[in-house]
């Protein structure tokens, strides 16, 4: 940072014209100034009391019935040797081979994939059954597609390829736009956002915000095509920097056949990487990175790597 840069940044600290006017107005009309009245001694005593009371009123029912867990408790699969990661590279909805059917469901216009390949999680202590269900997964997408897709379940809410008949709940501590829970036969399965049910693009920023990555991300890792760890960013500043970059990526739109072929070729020749957001709850979000094509897959969609990102990180992929 040069001296000039420092001065320029300090100049941007404010105040803005709006602030200047607002403050002047409040100085000249102190009776209208909220802050001074608000912070009289009466308020200093009253505010904590009110907040305490609110905490008691809102928090007590949760404490009593255990419905609300701390946000980032580890999400433990039930006796599953598989790693707790979700590969969210784009995949189509080819359901012709039932054994290969991707495990996903639709809710509120979004598509969610079952975490850990649909293995249950140990959420027995969360008492999720005491919460209000969001609905029942009645519509069997697999059967519908095999019958020609006449019902259109593949893009409809409560359509699912797995656990038909399961009951959908919110997962406490997570935005329902990001994660939900399915309960079936007393077992709990976690699903995670991968995109829109109608295959339209969502912005990378929407994904980042619904996942609350600002708070949930613990570190960011780069792995090569054989899952060998190449680099880890773990300081809060580095992680935030990554999240900022990810949120800024623009949707690449629908890829052409040629681009699809190039992607497949890059994949088979080991020119793809996994960008992994390791979360504080022990799970991960894996994004497939193809630097050569300036693309990254987040959920079911491809996004364009920004010029800023390329300028900052392309050295990692120089051979």
């Amino acid at each position: 940072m040069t001296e000039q840069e420092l001065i320029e940044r300090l100049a941007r600290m404010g105040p803005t014209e709006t602030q200047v006017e607002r403050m002047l107005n409040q100085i000249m009309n102190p009776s209208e100034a909220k802050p001074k009245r608000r912070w009289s001694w009466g308020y200093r005593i009253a505010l904590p009391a009110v907040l305490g009371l609110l905490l008691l009123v809102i928090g007590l029912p949760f404490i009593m019935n255990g419905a609300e867990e701390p946000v980032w408790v580890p999400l433990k699969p039930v006796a599953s040797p598989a790693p707790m990661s979700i590969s969210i590279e784009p995949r189509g909805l080819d359901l012709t081979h039932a054994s290969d059917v991707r495990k996903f469901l639709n809710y509120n216009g979004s598509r969610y994939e079952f975490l850990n390949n649909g293995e249950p999680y140990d959420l027995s202590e969360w008492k999720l059954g005491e919460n209000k269900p969001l609905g029942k997964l009645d519509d069997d997408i697999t059967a519908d597609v095999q019958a020609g897709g006449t019902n259109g379940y593949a893009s409809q809410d409560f359509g699912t390829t797995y656990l038909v008949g399961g009951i959908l709940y919110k997962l406490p501590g997570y935005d329902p736009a990001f994660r939900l829970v399915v309960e079936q036969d007393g077992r709990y399965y976690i699903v995670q956002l991968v995109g829109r049910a109608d295959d339209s693009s969502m912005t990378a920023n929407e994904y980042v915000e619904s996942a609350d990555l600002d708070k949930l991300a613990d570190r960011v890792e780069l792995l090569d095509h054989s899952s060998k760890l190449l680099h880890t960013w773990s300081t809060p500043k580095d992680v935030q920097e990554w999240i900022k970059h990810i949120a800024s990526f623009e949707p690449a739109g629908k890829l052409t056949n040629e681009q699809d072929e190039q992607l497949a070729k890059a994949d088979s020749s080991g020119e793809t990487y996994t960008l992994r957001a390791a979360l504080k709850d022990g799970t991960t979000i894996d994004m497939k990175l193809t630097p050569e094509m300036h693309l990254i897959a987040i959920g079911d969609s491809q996004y364009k790597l920004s010029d800023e990102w390329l300028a900052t990180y392309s050295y990692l992929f120089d051979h």
Partner: protein
Amino acid sequence: MEEPLQRTSKDITQIYQRHVHTVYKVSFMLLKNVVDAEEVTQTVFLKLMQSDVAFRDHEHEKAWLIVTARNHSRNVLKHWWRRMRTSLEETDQKQLTEQLKHDDTLGDVLALPAKYRLPIYLFYYEGYRTKEIAELLAVNEATVRTQLHTGRKLLKLRIGGDSDD
């Protein structure tokens, strides 16, 4: 007997226009929060309205405002209820705070320990000399030099010239 100084609204407005940016920036450098910086700025000018201090010139006026802003900011920092309050504030103020915190270079400055932030601001932005900063902050000049030196090192600032003066 000398009459107590009575400033008119017009006087206050003129002083405000001259120095509001400095007062706000000093407060923000110490408090790192739009809401608090605004409140301190308002309080400083309200104190000015109530004060009968006569200024020799605009520089004296500015120095008084900086010292008052700094003192009041330090008082605000002491109060435990400060953090609780920020969650209740206006959305645009919160957004501004967030924007500023995410401004990389400014974020680096704001991440400096408090004792380095104000000397760095006064020296580089306001153009005060170390001696003047020492008088404003009521500390030894050598202390200011050390604070600037350390702050610069922390910022990895590449500046032209070696002298603090």
